[in-house]
């Protein structure tokens, strides 16, 4: 329906413009030496070297042609599945509650400074999702947080997963017909959590009924049915926003009802209350940023929920795959690296915290072949630290994205030399 960008433009954009900040043209070669290299793919390498060339990780150890960067520690570039940098209401198609085939890629604003800020905090890959005003918001895309201004040059995986949302959020703004019968696009279901669950189930049963009974449908509906069929075959993971405990158990039961193989519970602040059910249904969990106080009122859904700092540790012990998100807010406390530190304070071991911001989210959306760990052949996305990663005393001093040095450790802290 909406064809991807024609090759003509791709060439132009790569030629044209380097990363937003330090404007080195084209990928170049680097040799990163560090006391500790945390690869997130096996044991860390002591006093090792990462050789970067042509935008990829060329070798671990040995020599390389580029300049040498000497830092204390190196981790893979972070992967944030809940970065929530979107154009708000303009990023989701609200003419229907189940805009299954609409793609957030068509509504992104890649000029927003928030991408650059997240990149400078170490987030190199992110999942862009539509805002949660629809029950099924549409197809999300995995992209790099830096690079050219057009999407094609940044996109790691188009249509990476299908976005859905439970809880009161999709029903805000909708209302029942007024006694005077005036009808607008917002006079519709859902107006409660019950309605949200109904619309989600109806979309799936429409797809199943159409296939099973050969019911006729518009081309757009057919396309929607095919997307839902892909989620049932496990080719496409479903990422569902479930903040309160009610939504966690509803999502778990929907997963079991339809047998959806891959489901990620996003912003699952109260999933710890239903830990056993989450484990039983085999869903993955994306935990929201830790709030300052213990109890936070969700801004959108005016739903009060109780956040548990040890939630990540609990799920880790149960063997439930977990990922963290920073929501890329301006709040310095909420960077993704800081979330890993806070999760460790809640009892999560360092290795699990490292995986929760690198390879685990990458695996959840199926891009672990290119990003998420420091292995030869993968994209050269590296985060350079001046101390042990995630400690309050350490800072991200350098970031390499696809071989580009986006944040230069040498410039940042001259005294290091």
């Amino acid at each position: 329906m909406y064809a991807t960008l024609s090759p003509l433009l791709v060439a132009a954009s790569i030629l044209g413009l380097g990363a937003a900040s330090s404007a080195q043209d084209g990928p170049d070669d680097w040799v990163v030496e560090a006391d500790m290299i945390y690869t997130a793919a096996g044991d860390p390498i002591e006093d090792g070297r990462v050789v970067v060339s042509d935008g990829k990780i060329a070798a671990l150890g040995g020599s390389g042609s580029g300049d040498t960067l000497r830092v204390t520690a190196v981790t893979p570039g972070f992967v944030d599945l809940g970065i929530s940098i979107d154009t708000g209401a303009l990023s989701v198609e609200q003419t229907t509650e189940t805009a299954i085939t609409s793609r957030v890629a068509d509504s992104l604003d890649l000029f927003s400074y928030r991408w650059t800020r997240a990149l400078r905090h170490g987030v190199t890959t992110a999942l862009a999702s539509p805002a949660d005003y629809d029950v099924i918001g549409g197809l999300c895309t995995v992209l790099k947080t830096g690079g050219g201004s057009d999407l094609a040059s940044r996109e790691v995986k188009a249509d990476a997963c299908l976005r859905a949302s439970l809880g009161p959020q999709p029903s805000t703004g909708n209302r029942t017909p007024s006694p005077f019968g005036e009808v607008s696009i917002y006079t519709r279901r859902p107006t409660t959590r019950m309605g949200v669950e109904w619309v989600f189930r109806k979309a799936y049963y429409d797809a199943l009924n159409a296939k099973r009974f050969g019911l006729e449908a518009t081309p757009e509906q057919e396309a929607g049915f095919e997307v839902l069929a892909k989620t049932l075959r496990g080719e496409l993971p479903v990422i569902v926003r479930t903040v309160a405990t009610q939504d966690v158990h509803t999502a778990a039961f929907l997963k079991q009802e339809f047998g959806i193989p891959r489901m990620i519970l996003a912003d699952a602040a109260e999933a710890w209350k239903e830990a056993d059910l989450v484990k039983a249904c085999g869903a993955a969990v994306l935990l929201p940023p830790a709030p300052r106080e213990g109890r936070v009122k969700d801004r959108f859904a005016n739903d009060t929920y109780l956040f548990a700092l040890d939630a990540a540790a609990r799920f880790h012990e149960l063997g439930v795959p977990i990922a963290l998100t920073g929501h890329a807010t301006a709040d310095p406390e909420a960077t993704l690296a800081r979330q890993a530190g806070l999760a460790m304070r809640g009892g999560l071991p360092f290795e699990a915290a490292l995986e929760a911001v690198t390879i685990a989210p990458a695996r959840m959306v199926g891009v672990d072949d290119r990003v998420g760990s420091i292995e030869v052949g993968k994209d050269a996305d590296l985060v350079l630290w001046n101390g042990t990663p995630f400690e309050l005393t350490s800072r991200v001093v350098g970031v390499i994205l696809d071989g580009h040095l986006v944040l230069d450790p040498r410039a940042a802290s001259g005294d290091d030399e």
Partner: protein
Amino acid sequence: MAGFFLGALALALPLHAGAPAPEEGRVALVASKILTCSFEGEQVVDHGVVLIREGKIEAVGRVGEVEIPEGYQTIDYGDLWLSPGFVGLHSHEAGASLFSGVNDLNDTVYLANPGMRAAASVEPGNHSMEMAVAGGVTTILYIPGSGSNIGGQGVLLKTPFTTFEEKVVRNPGSMKLAQWGNPERWGPGVGMAFENWNTRNTFRRGIVYARQMERAAAGEAEELPRNISFDPWRDLVRGEMAVSTHTQVYQVVLMTLTMIREELDMPVFLDHSTIGGWLAGKLAKELGVSAIVGPRSVDALSRGFINWARNKHEGFRGNAAGYQEMGMEMIGFNTDAPIIPQEELSVQAAMGARYGMTDERMQILRGLTIVPAITAKIGDRVGSIEVGKDADILVVDGHPADPRTHMESTWVNGKLVYDAKRDGRRW
């Protein structure tokens, strides 16, 4: 959240300190009087004992007749009584509070919304459930509101516990119907005639769908495309759940009995059923329909509602008493929580007695326990202290429906979920 009893059994009462370490989930309760409230048979066991194993009642009987086996932790409650946990069949309090700005009550885009499922908004462990446990209410039917004729499907829940799976008794628990009385606000020109037409029309289509799908399941007919709005009628057609009907005023109760029960042959029970509803008591008894009366306990005899100006003295007429005079036995009580807080279900029963309901065969306590349990078709699991049922047991220091009585402890599924000494007296 504080004060909630989560995990394994850890009891404060140091009785029989010398006994061998008790096995998990094995308890023996000894009390001066056990009000079994079984539907038939012995209602009271003096100086009795109850054996609990893995959340179920294993044995009930007099001390001496029932042997307490090895490995059971014995608790002697002395001169306190044991009563079955109360069953409240009309609650809107298991989800977000009605005053919290989140609408979990009504999704009335249509005048009939059978597809809505209250289970989606159950918030385990909220404050209302904690108070309900302290008030002795152990099982509730959480239902959507009466903003439309068919509000959706309710869910039967135990009141304690912090996870949905441990709370749920049956989902769907009932179909919520509002015969008349609130749904008029849905739109102009909506009145009794149109509502009843729309309800009958929706029920008819649901029954046709359900019957064909049942036959298809048995391999005798073609399956229809799945319709999640008409699914609840399959449970109704199988008789596994009933229609809980918000209905009051004599001719509306008549319509519930004649249309839903007689004409459409659906299992149904009357909720509220006040304001002269008891005049249809004789027909309800013939059709085997229970009446879950409340939250109004009285009808004022004066033409209008209760005369707040207090300048006319015409006295009141008890609703529950009215049904009893019409010969009904299946009379329960209802708080329409949070209109009346869930924990005050026992006070509703007391008001039933005050306004004339007789209690010589324990009708008051049965109205709180076995009658609502059987009405909601979970009489095999809760509602009385009988072998095989869930161990939902209250420890009280007097007749449970007497407001002077104090709830010492509440056991649900064989776990001590509330104890006045341990958690501090909550109500």
